[in-house]
Structures are given as structure tokens and as C-alpha cells.
């Protein structure tokens, strides 16, 4: 851990930002920090179970309808998927840098990196919007709009059911994360986070990395089915 630049040591914590001080029921900052990380890990554990239900449904239906799922997967734009994957991994990098900035008391850097993360998240969501609209135009959105030439229609629609629910919930988690990150930017700008007390940023980092990891699983399972075959 590098030495903190001088400005961080003199920046006082505004009284309006009292929540960022040590809470009354903790005996020390350390205890508060440990509790906060533990809480976030538990929250992520339950998120794993939440998405786990979806992955279970995916496994069941893909085993039943392997061929149809391959057909559905072929309709997805792999290039956009790869770009999105890179964008999201990049955003995890910027988020990790934001955490480093918080650990080393670089107030402006925290804000800069988090804004970058939000922007990259925005790029991801923008590309997803492009993909979703394309699906709508190609009549691949489940429901009355859906239309598939050929015999596998019902089963290909199941693939798209799962595609939209899984990527949709993932996107929702991203949006929530980005909103919280925006609030954190404002707080960071006001000097709320110090090297001693920045567990909010670390926790947010954990959450963002989790959202990234979910995508790492979603991408091959949705975009890359049957691509190894000619």
C-alpha cells in the first residue's frame, strides 16, 4: 500500500457525513469494517442463490432441448457479447482502482474511477439495448411478438425466455449498482472516505465484481452454445 498524498490527512470529515464515522454500537473502526465486509459477502452469497435458481432452470431446459438452445444462441451477436464482456471486465478494473484510491486517500481519483466505472456500465447497458431492439425486430422476444420459422419454435422461445430473464435481472443489478455508485461519487467528492474508513467503497467494489462474475457465466452459456461445432 503506497503512502497517502498529504491532502488526505488534512481533509476533515464534514459533520453532514457523520454516518461515515464510527457508528455508536461498534467499539472500533476495525470492528465496523470487518462487520461491513462480512455483511456484503453474505449478501453476495444470497445473490448467488438467487441467480442459482435461474441457472437451475437453464440447466434443466438446455438438457431437454439442446439443439433448440444452440439455434437460439446462434441468433445472439457474439461480437457485441465479446465487447460487452471486455467492457464489464474493464469496469471491474476501474472499480478496483477506485478501491485502491480509497485505500490510499486519493479523493479525486476515487471519484474519477467510479465515474469511469459508471460510464463503462453505461456502455454495457447501451449495447444491451441495441441487442434487445434487434431481438424485437427479429421477432425473438417471447410473447405475442415471437415468431420462429421451423419446427423448434416452442423450444427456441424457451431459450429466449431464459435469455431475457437472466440478462434482464443482471442488467437490473447493474443499474442498482450504478445508482449507488453515483451517490458514492458525491459522498467521495465531499471527502467522506479516508484510508481508515472506506468500507463502503470496498463493499461496493465487491458487489460490482460479483455482477461482473455473473456476466462471465452468462456470456458463454447464452452466446457460445454450439460455436465449437462448425
Amino acid at each position: 500500500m503506497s503512502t497517502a498524498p498529504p491532502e488526505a490527512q488534512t481533509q476533515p470529515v464534514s459533520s453532514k457525513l457523520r454516518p461515515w464515522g464510527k457508528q455508536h454500537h461498534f467499539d472500533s473502526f476495525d470492528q465496523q469494517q470487518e462487520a461491513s465486509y462480512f455483511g456484503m459477502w453474505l449478501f453476495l452469497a444470497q445473490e448467488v442463490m438467487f441467480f442459482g435458481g435461474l441457472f437451475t432452470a437453464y440447466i434443466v431446459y438446455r438438457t431437454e432441448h439442446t439443439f433448440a438452445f444452440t439455434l437460439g444462441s446462434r441468433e445472439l451477436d457474439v461480437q457485441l457479447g465479446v465487447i460487452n464482456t471486455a467492457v464489464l471486465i474493464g469496469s471491474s478494473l476501474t472499480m478496483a482502482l477506485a478501491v485502491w484510491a480509497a485505500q490510499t486517500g486519493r479523493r479525486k481519483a476515487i471519484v474519477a474511477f467510479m465515474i469511469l466505472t459508471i460510464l463503462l456500465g453505461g456502455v454495457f447497458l447501451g449495447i444491451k439495448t441495441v441487442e434487445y431492439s434487434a431481438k424485437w425486430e427479429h421477432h425473438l422476444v417471447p410473447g405475442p411478438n415471437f415468431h420462429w420459422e421451423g419446427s423448434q419454435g416452442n423450444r427456441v422461445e424457451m431459450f429466449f425466455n431464459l435469455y431475457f430473464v437472466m440478462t434482464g435481472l443482471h442488467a437490473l443489478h447493474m443499474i442498482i449498482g450504478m445508482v449507488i455508485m453515483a451517490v458514492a461519487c458525491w459522498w467521495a467528492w465531499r471527502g467522506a472516505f479516508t484510508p481508515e474508513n472506506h468500507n463502503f467503497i470496498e463493499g461496493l467494489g465487491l458487489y460490482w465484481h460479483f455482477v461482473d462474475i455473473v456476466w462471465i457465466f452468462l456470456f458463454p452459456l447464452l452466446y457460445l452454445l454450439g460455436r465449437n461445432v462448425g
Partner: protein
Amino acid sequence: MSAENTNYLNNNYGVKSWLLTIDHKRIAILYLISVTFFFLLGGLFAALIRIELVTPAGDMVQADTYNRLFTLHGVLMIFFFLIPAIPGVLGNFLLPIMIGAKDMAFPKINLASWYIYMAGGLFGAWAMLNGGVDTGWTFYTPFSTSFSNTYVISTAIGGFLAGFSSILTGINFIVTVHRLRAPGLTWFRLPLFVWAHYATGIIQVLATPVLAITLVLMIAERAFRIGIFDPALGGDPVLFQHLFWFYSHPAVYIMILPAMGVMSELITAFARKRIFGYKVVAAASVTIAVLGFLVWGHHMFVSSQSPYAGVIFSFLSMLVAVPSAVKVFNWTATLYEGSVSWDTPMLYALGFIGLFTIGGLTGVMLATMGIDIHVHDTYFVVAHFHYVMVGSVLMAYLGGLHFWWPKITGRLYPVFWAKISALLVFVGFNLTFFPQFLLGYLGMPRRYHAYPEEFQVLNVFSSAGASVLGLGYLIPLIYLFWSMRYGKKATSNPDDAFGLEWETSSPPPTHNFHETPNVTFEAYDYAARETARQAMTQPVGDPE
């Protein structure tokens, strides 16, 4: 003992000080009010059901109305009473005090969890005001997604929110127990109530999200015709059952584990003796939490699930029964050579032992595949789960409420009426639900609005018992309420029980302890405390 008059109840007045509180004790009171309300509403529906079932014809209400009554009874009782009650009221109030902490790890999340729970209640209320739901609390597809004409989505959102509240409570409990224990309070010095809530927290965090996603998918199917569970849309209705029961079986352990935690406290306090096999009981709680995740398929033996999967589930269900049985034996053994008082909380505890044994063993019968194929979806199952949920969880809740009432309110309740109610509850309960075992084996199915005449006499017994049971619940409602104003003021430790919560005033000050206590005693070491008292004037471990 605190000499001040300020405590958590009177240090701040006004609605805002309650609705924006982050004091775990006030949040517990908020939960107390809400769960009581939902319990009474669910109980009202139960009363209507039992009245209807006095006659074989469905002549009091129409079939559609009856279907909504039993659905709402189930939804309210399970999601809005049984799951939040003991953790939300007693757990919230006592856990920090029992470990010598000033509050939960995340007080604001604690308050948020109550608000989220109430929001869930609002969605449920919205559904009720619009005619209710008629799918059964189990929401089996495709009926719930493609056939029911009631407010399924609203109810599902209500359940989702109640579940989210439960998850946050679980996170809070786990982190609090790990991180906020007072110095000297090692894991094996913790009260068993704390162990129980810790194990419950694990289930809340890991199981509830699966219910959440199942409800999301069910809503998506109903609203957008996204066919995951409806065969007409290419889906699989048994997949719904697997996902649903993956949560709903561990959910019953969310209900019973805190009750068992209360039981350990009651037995030890009113036998003035350390629990027999403390470590085994603690380990049993965690074992139940873990094994409870592996048995969900025993709800699905006749669902067209593979019989080989059924065999595995049946086997594992037998395993999960063992730690529960061991707890019963340990509680019983604690009474041996104890100093047993017959105070109201102990009456509830002793009743629990008997009723939980019956409930648990009939559960083992249901886990036996060959028996289940006959009694599945009959009143045998209804009787079984009421024995464990009402005869056990609710009795433990009432026993605990009475035991800690002086601590929570600073008042004593009238003993005579309390004991009468305990007796009425025990007698009324058995009269209501024992005949249902017979009805079940005779073949009376569940969720039946009208039934063949030869089942009538047993149904009449059951409904008669329900009126006694109802009375047994109403009387405490009255005297507990009365006691808050007119009850005798309580000292800090009216039953001379062992535990950190009894070392502080009744009611406790807002910050629980003036200084963080330093714990040197083993749990429930009544003997050591007695020795120390005889040797000294002041008991060791007193925070002052």
C-alpha cells in the same frame, strides 16, 4: 442494576422516534405490533374455515371464497407471522443484549427490513382488498400462472418483499453474532437462543433467494406469458415444485429453530440448571440448518418425481429428524435433578415437548414413502404441520413472550390468567388437531370446502377445539395489553434467571449496557453463580 429511570421506552417520545428508530429494541416492538396484527387476521380466516367445516356441505361460503380463505390463512401465517415472529420480536430484542452488544451490526438495515416487511404486507393487503388469492399458499403451476383469476402477482410481490426482509434479518444476525460478542464470550459460552438464531440466519440467507427467483419467474409467466412452468407453453410444472420446495422446506426450519432456541432458554431458566449436553444442542441447531436443505423432495413423492430421487429424499429426511429428537431428549434430561418451577413459560415449554414429539414423529411417518402415498395431501399432513407450527413454534413464541415480557415492558403479567390460557391453548390445540390425523388416514383431502358426511363428527370435534384454542389466544392478548399500563413493575431479574439480559434493567436502557460486560461464566452456570453468591455479596458478571 441501573438507578436511572430512563430506558429505551421512555427516552424519546413521538411517532417519529418510533418510526425512524434504529434501536433494535424498538424495532422489535414494531415487529411485535405487526406480527400480532397479521396473526389475528390469519386467525380470523382460520376461524371462518373451521366454522364452514362444521357441516359437510359447503353452505356457509361459496367454493371460491373458501379457496381464498385457506390461501390467505396460509400466506399470512407463514410469511407474515411464523417466519418473522420469533426472530423479529424476540431475536431482535434479545440477541444484542445476550451477547453484550449495544445493537445489531446493521441497525439501519434492521429498520429497513421492518419497512420492507410492511411493504410486503401492503401488497398482500392490496390483494386481499381486491378479493384475495385462491391458489393455495404453495402457488402450484399451471393453476397459479395460467388459470387463477385472482391477484396472484400482488400476493407474490408481497411474499417476495417479506422474503427480502427475512434475508436482511438473517445477514444482521450472522454478522452480529460473529463480530459483536462481548469480550470473554466465546462461541461455547453463548446462550443456545443465540446459536439457534445464528443457524436460522444461515437458512434465511441461503434459502430465501430461491423463493425470490421462483416468484419472479412465476410473475413473469403470469404477466408476460413467458412459459417456464406451464406445459401448454413448453414449461415444466414439476420444476416449479422443486424450486418452490427448495426454499419452503428450509423455511420450516426458519420457523422451528428460533422456537427451539426459546425452548432451551425456558427449560434452563425454569429448571435452574445448565442444559444437558449444551454443545450437542448447539451443534444440533447447525446440523438441522444444513441437512434441512437436502430434503425438499419429500413433498413430491407422488408428483411424478423419479422414485430413486424420492428414496434419497426419504433417507435424508430421516437423518434430519435425529438432531431434533436429540434436542427433545436433552431438554427432558435437563429436568432431571433440576429445580422445576411451574411458571407460565415453563408450562408452554413442557407442552412444546409433548406436541413437538407428536408433530416430529408424524413428520417421520410422512417421510416414509410408503405411508406418504396414502396420506399426502390429506388432513394427516395438515395435522402434522399444525402440531409443529402451532403446537410448537407458536407455543414457544408465547412462552418466550411471557418469559421476557418483564424485560421488554418492565411489567409483570397476571399469573392466574396466564396459566389458564396456557392450559386452554394446550387442550384446545389437541382437540382441534388430533382428530385431523384420523380424518387424514380416512382419506379426507386438504383444501376441501365440502366433504362426505361420514367425516362430519371428527370435523365438529376439530372446530369445537378451535374455539377453545381461539379463546386461549385471546385472553393473553387482553392481559398482556392490560399489563403494559396496570401490571406490577418488574425488577431486572424476576425469575432469577441466568443470562446477560437479566443483568440489565427491566426495561433496558437504550444502549443496553453502560459498559461492555466482560464475560467469565460458562452458559447457564447456575451452580457457579450460586457458589459465587454464597461467597460474596455481589454476583460476578454484573456490568456495574
